[in-house]
């Protein structure tokens, strides 16, 4: 529970401990498809959205490789409506053929819109398959291919629900101007009667340490050559995470970052360049990606990126530069905490990864990172044998598929 007396709105957030990493390799995209089906009516309530809208509320949900999150916000006076709706769909779904049929189509269009009908849309399909040999991060949340979604059957949906959607696998956060006793009462009333269910024991095959660099070149019908390189990085709960998150900012956070200043502004090899990671709960990827200025070869671009990384591997960053990215982190966290929806979401996330009090201690962990740790983590991380490189090149041939 998170109390905030300044807002007229309340938030109910339920995070389920299931993501695309929990899928069968022959049935990918299922966690996300299932998220859509959660809006197709529950056992006692034919429509989820209508009663919520009637109560002046709004909701949404998202699926990642690690988790699935559902949240709604509504006037505090009508909070019980959210308890009623969320508890019923945790109890059981309606499992209608019609809903499955429609959502299969909707997700297929989503797949087309974001991954097929967009230049560079398939990059992460290629990169994940290359960077991971074993771990289910091999596929994206949308799924490996359209057929997996199109072939989903109602019985699969029922099995998935039984395995993952019960109180044992869920974290609930309520935020707003509400009293704890009242929330306890509502929780007992609506969620208390739902059988706890079996705790899903995750047994995801872990990715073996990479020992050899992987490289791939593809040609596609795009106007510009693009460069992607990833390195395996520690999991979100690893203590090295904070130093690495700051390294990402040193490299690619904003217009004064090293990659942008050196490669876009000074050397003009890239027309844009970014550095990012997804904060994955298992070992993830740190990625550098950029589009090349026309006439620059990917080899020259890569050599220039490696030279920037050499700077980090060989020389300690200045205290001032480290302070800069710490200040950015502090500011970002403060701005993120402005809305109760974000605060509820963060609280659920920290509870999911083991400790809700991390909400208050994270900044301190960033502040404690030293220039020596940054140097050490750069040495650990940016090893060629730990890397996956993709050259995604423009082809002159028109209208050729793959």
């Amino acid at each position: 529970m998170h109390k905030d007396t300044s807002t007229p709105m309340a938030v109910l957030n339920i995070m389920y401990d299931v993501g695309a990493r929990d899928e069968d390799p022959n049935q990918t995209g299922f966690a996300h498809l299932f998220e859509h089906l959660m809006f197709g009516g529950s056992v006692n309530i034919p429509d989820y959205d209508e009663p919520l809208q009637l109560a002046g509320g709004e909701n949404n949900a998202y699926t990642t490789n690690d988790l699935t999150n559902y949240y709604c916000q509504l006037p505090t006076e009508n909070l019980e409506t959210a308890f009623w709706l969320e508890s019923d769909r945790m109890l059981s779904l309606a499992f209608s053929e019609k809903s499955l049929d429609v959502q299969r189509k909707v997700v297929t269009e989503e797949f087309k819109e974001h991954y097929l009908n967009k230049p560079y849309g398939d990059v992460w399909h290629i990169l994940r398959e290359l960077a991971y040999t074993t771990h289910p991060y091999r596929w994206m949340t949308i799924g490996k291919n359209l057929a997996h979604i199109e072939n989903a059957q109602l019985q699969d949906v029922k099995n998935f629900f039984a395995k993952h959607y019960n109180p044992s696998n869920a974290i609930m956060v309520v935020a707003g101007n509400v009293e704890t006793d009242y929330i306890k009462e509502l929780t007992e009333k609506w969620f208390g009667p739902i059988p706890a269910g079996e705790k899903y024991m995750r047994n995801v095959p872990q990715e073996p340490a990479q020992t050899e660099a992987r490289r791939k070149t593809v040609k596609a019908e795009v106007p510009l050559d693009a460069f992607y390189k990833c390195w395996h990085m520690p999991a979100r709960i690893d203590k090295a995470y904070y130093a690495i998150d700051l390294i990402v900012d040193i490299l690619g956070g904003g217009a004064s970052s090293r990659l942008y200043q050196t490669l876009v502004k000074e050397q003009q090899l890239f027309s844009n360049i970014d550095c990012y990671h997804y904060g994955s709960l298992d070992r993830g990827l740190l990625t550098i990606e950029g589009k090349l200025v026309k006439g620059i070869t990917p080899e020259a671009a890569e050599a220039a990126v490696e030279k920037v990384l050499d700077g980090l591997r060989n020389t300690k960053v200045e205290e001032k530069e480290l302070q800069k990215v710490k200040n950015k982190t502090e500011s970002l966290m403060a701005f993120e905490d402005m809305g109760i929806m974000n605060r509820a979401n963060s609280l659920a996330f920290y509870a999911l990864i083991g400790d809700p009090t991390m909400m208050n201690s994270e900044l301190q962990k960033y502040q404690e990172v030293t220039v020596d740790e940054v140097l050490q983590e750069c040495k650990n991380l940016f090893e060629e044998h730990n890397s996956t490189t993709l050259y995604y090149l423009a082809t002159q041939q028109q209208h050729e598929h793959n």
Partner: protein
Amino acid sequence: MNIINTVNTLDRTKAPHIKDAIEFDLHLKPYQKMVLDNGVEVYTIDAGPEDLLQLEWVFFSGNWYEEQNGIAAATNHLLKNGTSTKSAFEINDHFDYYGAYLNRSCYNETATISLHTLNKHLSELLPVVAEIIMDASFPTQELEIYQQNMKQRLEVNLLKCDFVANRLIDEYLYGIKHPYGKYATAETYNALDINAIKQFHHQYYAQGRCIMFVAGKLPTDIFQQLNDNFGKLPIHPRTSVAIEHPVLQATQKKYHIVNDPSGVQAAIRIARPSINRLHPDFTKAQVLNTIYGGFFGSRLMSNIREDKGYTYGIHSFFQNHLSASAWIVSTEAGIDVAEATIKEVYHEMQVLREEPVDADELLLVKNYLIGSVLGDLDGPFQIIGRWKNIILNDLTGSYFDASIQTIKDITATDIQEMAEKYLNPDDFYELVVI
């Protein structure tokens, strides 16, 4: 607590009692206004849980005022890429060091500089914002990098059917020469000239007209800080400048364009010229728009996504322009269902014209709208955003209250009247881009 008893008596088919959102008493928190020594007005909202601020300098320097396409956007973009004493890197590094976000955006009538920062760093940042406004130096090399990178970005975007559709529909609605209808091509970027940019900066920023909006937990000396840094600059308060741009609508109404022969989806835009916020029908038409395609439970979403599965999303909305405006239906749908989607878009217009909305749906939409306003008033940035809209559109202070009252009072008959008046297929442009 007697849980067993609760289990036995809990009827999950019955919704808990709700307070109808239309019973809520909604008020927009009033702003405080200060006037700097040079007459520039500053509107402020003091609220929020964290010691942080959002400051926005709104200049009347959008593409409405440019004589050559692309000048306003380039000037705005390059503002922070160097002054006579600082390089682009030094400026970026300064704001980044203090964890602040300095952004700029160019719109049609206005162009803005915005700053998000923790209060404790404000005094280090304001002098550099003032320096940018007065002394941006526009190095030639910065312009060249901008031209090269913008052309490259444009090339990628031109492969996207939605991007192409958004440009073309504006061209049909306003004409390619109108500020709302024109767009950039590679030639636009090639033609940019550093002297024209410097001249535009001088006229519309350094000596321009400005209005400021500040929200967050205000420091006690905020006025002093703003007046010290900006009150003596030769910038001017906002006054109306009459530059007219005639709208030239296309005569052809239907377009089918193959942009990418290998595309698997079609971008569909169905749009008509429309009233704007100043028109007495506007709020009523907004309620109609909500029912039609303005939220997840709308007619278009329910029919075309949730019943037929033709699309991942379909929306209708009003463009937020200050003068002429448009009402647009927008979606991306599978190529094989594009025609069927368009048919349903018109069908839903017809239903709204011919049948009154039933009481349940109308109440739901009213509650949803009021609920979303209530949620949207939560926080200083949202509140100042509403005021900014009211002030820049020259609406009166009672606009917000009047809109809320209209939403509460609107009837099914009003909705049907609006539909008869505004949702006639003959008035709409229809564009499909594959």
